[in-house]
């Protein structure tokens, strides 16, 4: 679904991406990890066309994003949903209006239908009806993430980009968000690309993980990455936080039998 080839991005003398390749298959939950400043968000912005890469190609659904005409580009943009790190809800609109915003822009629908669709999308992400009438400033962090997800889902995307979806959430809300993500992924048959630092989220949800190191990406399944000898990956996946997340994930898969797991 997504194919990034030989991507180069640099800011002045600082090279962020140095020939990065990435490929995401349909139906995956693809996690992107990397240390601070390794260009995870820059990668996302390049894929979304918010930043023109210095060189390299980005293909979505087999089409080169750069070479698309403006009209095709607009329909491409409508085919994916994005949530930003801090929600990026429009603060002067209510939550329901935020969800309706893309629908209102792209389709001429009656108010009644718009209300119904806002209700549905808020329901999908597990927000109660009264949340729709609130302004973003009145929501908690977890609710903002959910509302942002509802807005991203409004145009029925097949592809979802999530930037740090669980950052700043307490473990309970983060776990609930993981479950929601898995649920929507299976029910709506979404493909998800997710930038995250949350190892729990990574272990609970992702099917494959791409690690950005030295401007390139190493992609593998989680068990594969755990065996990878690269020092940074070793440190990342075998640090104390990783071990706890790993044990938990292993415990869940083993029907809660072996909590001690490996590690």
């Amino acid at each position, binding site marked *: 679904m997504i194919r990034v080839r030989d991507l180069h991005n640099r800011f002045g003398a600082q090279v962020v991406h140095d020939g990065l390749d990435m490929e995401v298959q349909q139906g995956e939950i693809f996690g992107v990890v990397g240390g601070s400043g390794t260009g995870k968000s820059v990668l996302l912005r390049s894929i979304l066309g918010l930043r023109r890469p210095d060189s390299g190609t980005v293909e979505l659904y087999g089409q080169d994003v750069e070479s698309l005409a403006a009209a095709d580009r607009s329909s491409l943009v409508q085919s994916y949903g994005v949530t930003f790190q801090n929600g990026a809800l429009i*603060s*002067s609109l209510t939550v329901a209006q935020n969800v309706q915003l893309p*629908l209102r822009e792209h*389709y*001429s*629908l*009656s108010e009644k*239908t718009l209300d*119904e*669709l806002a*209700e*549905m999308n808020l*329901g*999908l992400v597990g927000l*109660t*009806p*009264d949340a729709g009438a609130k*302004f*973003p*400033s*009145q929501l908690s962090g977890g609710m903002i993430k959910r509302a942002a997800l509802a807005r991203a889902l409004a*145009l*029925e995307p097949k592809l979802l980009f999530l930037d740090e979806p669980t950052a700043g959430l307490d473990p309970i809300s983060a776990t609930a968000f993981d479950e929601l993500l898995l649920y929507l992924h299976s*029910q*709506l*048959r979404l493909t998800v690309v997710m930038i995250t630092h949350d190892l729990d989220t990574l272990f609970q949800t992702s099917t494959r993980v791409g690690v950005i190191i030295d401007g390139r990406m190493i992609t593998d399944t989680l068990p594969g990455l755990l065996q990878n000898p690269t020092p940074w990956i070793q440190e990342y996946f075998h640090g104390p936080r990783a071990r706890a997340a790993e044990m938990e994930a292993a415990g869940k898969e083993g029907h809660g039998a072996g909590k001690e797991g490996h590690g």
Partner: protein
Amino acid sequence: MTAPLALEPQGDGWRLKLRGDWSLAGMPGIEAQLESLPATLHGNLVCDWTDAQAPGISPAWALLRRLAEDAPALAVRHAGNPPHFLELLQKLHVERQAAYGALPGEPTLERLVGRLGRWSVLQGLHLRGVIVFLGRIATVVGQALSRSSAWRISSLTRHIYETGITAIPIVALIAFLISVIVAYLGAQQLSRFGADIFVVDLVTIATLREMGVLLTSIIVAGRSGSAFAAEIGVMQLNEETDALRAMGMNPIELLVVPRVLALVIALPLLTVIADAMGLAGGGLLSLINLHIPLPEFTARMRESLSSTTFWAGLVKAPVFAVLIAMVGTYRGMQVRDSARELGRLTTVAVVQSIFMVILADALFAVLFVQIHF
């Protein structure tokens, strides 16, 4: 293009054939067709999804909602390979209905009274907020008299530079131009009586008593009042003021008082510049338009001045400065939560400070007449 819905009788009930584009893109057409479904259906209804192309979750939801709302007596069944998410939607629908049932409906009169009450309480809180704000400033200023560290000298000089020095060009230009306009209009009228020379009196008194200080204050309110509100407002949004409080620093002392003091110092100085430029503008126009040479202009100017004319204008400047700075910083401190609040309160700051300046000016005018100043 086939219509997206077709209702056919079937056995003891109905068959609703869904055809054509049932994706989100086909939504407007589907919406119209759903509206035209007869409301009095009852019995069994089978939704046939066989011919629905690329069914989307949004149209499916609209269909479910319309069937449940308009024809609650129907027993709906789905057939013909219904989309995979239908089960999810049905579950969601049941949950939503339960949630809506629990929402209390508010009677209209009660809502009106409630709104009035909320408004009144809000106004009361607002008034209290202003008083508290004034009190806090007074406290800090009081402390500053005894504690030298409360004088934020570097901050003060920065604000004097930003509100005063950088405003000089625009204040000078506008004072000059307005004075030229007044002199020009005055000359036109007064020359009809042959009283051209009184243009000098007009320009001198108008500039020194009123226009110098008033124009400067209005420009500064637009420049600095808005800047104060926006700067402090963004700090509020970023929780910077909370951070200062948490580190044991007083945002009023750090942010508000230096701005107020800076403006109290800068505005009178700007007024002097505006006065000078206004007189220069009057002199220039008199020279060019009325052929009054400069020595004659200055001589006439001295005659028209009383000892208080200049001070009657200048004494107002610090008062206006306090008003502008207080309104700007207070509105800035009020910003909460959203970008819209920031814009709204910045606008309020400018409008309100200009209004306060003009109101205060009117009060001064009455006062000066009473005490023959």
